[in-house]
């Protein structure tokens, strides 16, 4: 606890506090504007942090992450358009409640639930990270290889839509990380004679392409979609303590669900919100009210998606495995700042890790204060014209990619991956597994090759390692579970009732 107290004191110093305030505010704004996402903001900010102190840089990015997940509820409630994918479930009850003349209540429920969800996940983050990190130190190459495999299978199996497409996305991500100089043996591969490919596709241009450029093309494609905003009344954005007491169990349950799903490698906040919402509906005495402006729906969705942020930071900090696509960007930020992610992070950069966790907690409190105080202003600003916004975003994107190594090739990579990302999105191939696959490809290959070198029994050596065997068995179970479920559904339908 002494470490956390020290870190809290550090982040309350003027500069760290300023960056948390800035990151949270920008995150809320970007999260609130439909068509802009937290991933986009964090990726665009990443090149600007090259010249910053690494602790301040990561504090800024984590605050953006917290803000962006929370900001989505404003447009979900007032525009019926989730500002971020994680707020999709809030739309179902937030907008009807706003339509019924209670937009302030809907927003207050969302903001309050976000705070509590975020803080509950923060408690898990602080309590679980040190022991998990110590446990992860016993991991060898087989464990890491099977864990990456599990992450890809898990995110593919839980991705919305087809599992096959989730797997395609994950393996495509790995495939695009392969060209260039192989770090294991210095072998040049898959360049097809293009010298520009000798260094492979760099992480930042790929992230800018997939998260930013593809979104710009998507926004241009959907330019006819004009949101109509509901007006906020003059009422105060708050909910009575008595009403909160009625939601206590729902908030706690949804926050734990959000945290747990966040801990699972690769799975993002939207899945947490969906699972928490469906669970709340299933256990509710009034399930028929869900989707009609029911407070329980807003509470479940918002507490779970914010809790996911804290939960997803746990595998990133303790094992160097991203808990969500945005964590994959944060992981890239660590690498770009020469901080080696993984279980040794607590030993090599202990102060840094505690500062990150403290920043996460402070960002949640600031998010609550900023959103409560300025929700009316943000509600007006979310209708900003995309004709002005998108060109500005691409120019920033271009500068970020070019500044990396003063090559126009990297800017072309942004455009190319933007087009690929757009078409994958149109074909309903999720982009989350793609990014996770791209980021984890290096670990996947290095650990697989190391394990083969170490093991005399070849791949069968995996069965001498209980944790690795467990991860492998879990991966296989997750891979086949959807087919078993579908078979069970079919046999249930066919059997005479």
């Amino acid at each position, binding site marked *: 606890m002494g470490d956390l107290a020290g870190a809290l004191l550090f982040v309350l110093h003027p500069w760290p506090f300023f960056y948390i305030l800035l990151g949270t505010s920008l995150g809320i704004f970007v999260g609130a504007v439909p068509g802009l996402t937290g991933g986009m903001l964090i990726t665009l900010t990443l090149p600007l942090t090259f010249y910053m102190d690494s602790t301040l840089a990561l504090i800024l990015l984590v605050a953006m992450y917290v803000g962006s997940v929370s900001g989505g509820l404003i447009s979900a409630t007032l525009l019926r358009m989730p500002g971020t994918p994680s707020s*999709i*479930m809030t*739309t*179902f009850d937030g907008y009807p409640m706003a339509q019924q003349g209670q937009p302030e209540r809907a927003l207050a429920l969302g903001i309050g639930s976000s705070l509590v969800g975020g803080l509950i996940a923060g408690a898990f983050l602080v309590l679980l990270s040190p022991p998990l990190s110590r446990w992860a130190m016993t991991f060898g190459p087989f464990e890491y290889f099977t864990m990456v495999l599990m992450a890809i299978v898990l995110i593919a199996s839980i991705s*919305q*839509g*087809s*599992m*096959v497409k989730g*797997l*395609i996305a994950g*393996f*495509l991500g*790995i*495939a695009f990380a*392969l*060209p260039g100089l*192989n770090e*294991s*043996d210095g*072998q040049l*591969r*898959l360049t097809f004679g293009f010298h520009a490919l000798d260094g492979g596709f760099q992480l930042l241009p790929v992230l800018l392409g997939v998260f930013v450029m593809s979104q*710009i093309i998507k926004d*241009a494609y*959907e*330019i*006819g*979609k004009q949101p109509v905003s509901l007006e906020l009344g003059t009422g105060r954005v708050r909910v009575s303590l008595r009403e909160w007491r009625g939601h206590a169990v729902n908030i706690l349950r949804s926050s734990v669900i959000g945290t747990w799903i966040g801990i699972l490698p690769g799975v993002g906040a939207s899945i947490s919100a969906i699972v928490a919402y*469906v669970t709340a509906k299933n256990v509710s005495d009034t399930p028929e009210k869900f989707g009609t402006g029911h407070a329980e729906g807003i509470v479940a969705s918002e507490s779970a998606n914010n809790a996911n942020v804290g939960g997803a930071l746990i595998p990133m900090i303790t094992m160097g495995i991203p808990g969500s696509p945005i964590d994959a960007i944060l992981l890239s930020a660590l690498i770009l700042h020469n901080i080696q992610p993984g279980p040794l992070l607590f030993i090599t950069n202990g102060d840094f890790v505690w500062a990150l966790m403290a920043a996460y907690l402070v960002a949640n409190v600031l998010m609550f204060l900023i959103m409560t105080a300025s929700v009316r202003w943000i509600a007006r600003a979310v209708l900003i*014209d*995309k*004709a*002005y916004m*998108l*060109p*500005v975003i*691409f*120019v920033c994107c*271009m*500068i970020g990619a*070019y*500044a990396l190594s003063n090559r*126009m090739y990297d*800017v*072309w990579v942004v*455009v190319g991956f*933007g087009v690929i990302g*757009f078409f994958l999105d*149109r074909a*309903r*191939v999720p982009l989350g597994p793609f990014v996770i696959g791209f980021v984890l490809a290096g670990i*996947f*290959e290095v650990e*697989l*090759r190391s394990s*083969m*070198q170490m093991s005399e029994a*070849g791949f069968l050596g995996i069965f001498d390692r209980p944790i690795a065997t467990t991860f492998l068995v879990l991966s296989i179970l997750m891979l086949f579970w*959807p087919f078993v479920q579908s078979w069970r559904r079919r046999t249930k339908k066919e059997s005479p009732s």
Partner: protein
Amino acid sequence: MSDTSGRNRTNLLLASALVLFSGLLFRGALDIPPPFFDPLGSAAVPKLVAGVLLVLALVLGASAVFDVRAEEPAGPMPAAIEADEKAAPASPVTAAAAVLITAAYVGSMHARLLDFAAASTLFVLALGMLLARGRMRALLVLVPLALLLGYGFEWLFTRVLFIDLPQRSILLEGLSGG
């Protein structure tokens, strides 16, 4: 065209593209020399990934041909929102034009025909007017925005932050007397 046939056609196209991509990956992997110090070598993972992608492409293609619904049922989305999503007008021409304008912007700097300031000014105006669907009033915002982003950013990045930005070719500077 029904939703199902449209989805199957998209899946078939995706599967075909994936078959080609995995073939390319496998072909590239064949050129990698055999390992000399570890049992797997640099070609193993590319071959493995190419194989997995091929299998997935075949599963996707087969499900499209035999019209097996590969997507999970949509979530508990209220009908009104679902209807809104479907009714949202799509502008493929705008999206294609946006990509072309972006490519022209990057290309003009790559070929060193324009420097960052001029290229960005023109890009913001072109893409902005495209997205504003030719509304002339948008120019009131776009012109100062374009100048600020083009010339303002060039000054900020090159003079204050000392970050290089693309410059025009010296040869072209000489031709235009600049």
